[in-house]
């Protein structure tokens, strides 16, 4: 399924499966999303290859950035008016706690969603949403160059 068809299918059904299927990297990472209380909740399913430090053990910081960037894009696509994929202008990831070798969830908040640019804050957590393992702020370009 082409990406824009997947976006349309997700918008119709509220099931993010087609988007997960259409994005090779999302499959490699085990990243998907679901609607929880009408909000997009990202999820990264634990797998051994996501580990960054096997001694601690802790997930690789890059994987948390990947989940948060993906969750922001999923939410922008869910709320967007076109199927064009938002382009990441920049992302700042702040690491707050070691992430345990288990599933990670993420919630995104639109700090400002303009016509051209969106500012999105994302929180990644494991057991307790009030104890995020990492947070991110990202800007996305919503229009084609």
């Amino acid at each position, binding site marked *: 399924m082409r990406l824009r068809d997947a976006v349309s299918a997700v918008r119709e059904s509220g099931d993010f499966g087609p988007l997960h299927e259409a994005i090779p990297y999302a499959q490699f990472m085990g990243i998907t999303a679901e609607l929880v209380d009408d909000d997009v909740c990202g999820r990264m399913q634990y797998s051994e*290859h996501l580990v960054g430090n096997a001694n601690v053990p802790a997930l690789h910081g890059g994987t948390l950035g990947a989940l948060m960037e993906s969750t922001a894009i999923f939410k922008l696509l869910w709320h967007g008016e076109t199927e064009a994929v938002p382009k990441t202008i920049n992302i700042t990831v702040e690491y707050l706690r070691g992430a345990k070798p288990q599933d990670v969830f993420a919630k995104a908040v639109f700090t400002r969603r303009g016509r051209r640019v969106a500012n999105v804050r994302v929180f990644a957590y494991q057991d307790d949403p009030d104890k995020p393992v990492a947070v991110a702020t990202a800007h996305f370009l919503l229009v084609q160059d």
Partner: protein
Amino acid sequence: MSDSFLPQKDEIRRRLEGRYIGAVPHNRALNLRVADYRPEHLSLALPYREDLVGNPETGVLHGGCITSLIDAACGGAVIMSLVAPRRVATLDLRIDYVRPALPHQEVICDAHCYKVTRHVAFVRAAAHHGDNASPIATASGTFVVFRDSRRDVDGDSE
């Protein structure tokens, strides 16, 4: 980089790859390799792979694996600037995508740890397709350096 009259250089590279890639499951899963190194500097390469693509219509790698590449290179650059091996952990990492990445090309990240204090290290990095004058992403990050040797083995950041 492959100075044939300096055979020990390959040995150093092999050891660095063991430390930064072999010992790190996610770096191994991305097939990262050491492209270059010197004190305070580390360059890692991420080979292009279809299963790392973010947008199948453009064939360009997902930003997430670029983030992992940059994080790995920056953390390695910190270790390349320490006199003794320590565990380090990323405090924050900012990545600016200054130019669209191209499909079917490996991405190289050059990271430079330009300042280390007792507990914190500061790093700048750029990711490119082989020409570092034309980066696709620039980045800056800070890392905490653990001084407690016990924590180097089994510690946590808390």
